[in-house]
């Protein structure tokens, strides 16, 4: 991110110099900064509303219920966690909280799950298959409602920003499934490699 930031600004100055558009560039720089604050402030209301709603879900045990439901199917993805129920339930809680967009609540569960898996790990510096699977699934970012994005669209005056929910859900589901698929394939490949060098 560091390089992207530096690169973007330096290149703009160089291009502005060549194209003789330095005044426009400076003007845009100042305007965009103001716009950024406006967007962020406009976001507060919707974000607060959504986080309020999902906090009810958390408090009345919906997330726990959901995580219980997905525990069984999760064992298919993490077969070596059969003897590590704590890791499995933390993974389930992490995925459930993430699905509702509670990123702040999800991260502690995720870290706890990693610690549980690390406890049974033979080599503490090398990731296990379950760890890789967990990470892959997590990076796919499965989410029922992309609250922040909707908040930004609405703060900018889009009429019905919820129209993006379903297409986003399709895209994120495909990413989710493919993360499982790729993790499994790479897992098989690394197993095959190990056998070969035995």
């Amino acid at each position, binding site marked *: *991110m560091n390089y*992207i930031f530096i690169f*973007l*600004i330096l*290149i*703009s100055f160089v*291009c*502005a110099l060549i*194209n003789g558009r330095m005044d426009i560039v400076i003007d*845009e720089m100042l*305007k*965009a*900064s103001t716009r950024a*604050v406006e967007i962020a*402030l406009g*976001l*507060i209301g919707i*974000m*607060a509303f*959504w*986080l*309020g*709603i999902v906090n*009810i*879900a*958390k*408090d*009345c045990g*919906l997330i726990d219920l959901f995580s219980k439901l997905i525990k069984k199917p999760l064992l298919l993805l993490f077969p070596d966690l059969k003897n590590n129920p704590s890791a499995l339930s933390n993974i389930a809680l992490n995925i459930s909280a993430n699905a509702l967009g509670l990123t*702040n609540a999800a991260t502690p569960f*995720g*870290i706890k799950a*990693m610690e549980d898996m690390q406890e049974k790990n033979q080599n*503490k*510096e*090398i990731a296990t298959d379950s760890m*890789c*699977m967990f*990470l*892959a699934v*997590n990076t796919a*970012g499965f*989410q029922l409602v992309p609250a922040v*994005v909707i908040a*930004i*669209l609405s703060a900018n005056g889009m009429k*019905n920003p919820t*129209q*993006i929910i*379903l*297409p*986003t859900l*399709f895209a*994120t589901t495909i*990413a989710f499934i*493919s*993360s499982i698929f790729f*993790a499994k394939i*790479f*897992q098989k490949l690394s197993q095959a490699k190990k056998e070969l060098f035995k």
Partner: protein
Amino acid sequence: MIKFLTSLSLYLLPLIITIILCSALVKKTPAYESFIEGARDGFNIAIKIIPYLIAIMAASAMFRASGAVDILGKFLNPVFETFKIPPQTLMVMITRSLSGSATLGVLGDIINQTGVDSYATKLAAIITGSSETTFYVASVYFGAVGIKKFRYALLSGIMADITGLIAAIYIASIFFL
């Protein structure tokens, strides 16, 4: 079919809220207090992303105003044109695996530039909403327990990102073109 799905989008949110409120009723959870407590976080999140938004929105606005994008766009235009991808969305594709807040900034920049109801905005919104920042997640989770060899974790994540990106482009074109 698409019309039906689009209206389904509209009802998905009320449905989720109804389920949540009904289970609060059944479980006798103090919904109001719970809501207030959760809503407080919304403020913090919005404030927290301000510096990221400023950094990325300012940098990309400058980049665009300088005419650099036009040069970059010339190379990529043929590819983007074939798949009907608005060239403005290129930055979202680059940043989405690197930083979530930066991607929000880019989304803000695209809205700024093309308007909130443009196809570019919708596509960028879907791309932003359907991904998690692979590199950030990896460094947080593996860093927390001291894993140094990530093995195939990052590669799987990136492959899933690419698949998700292609899916987002395809799905957006079905829904909104």
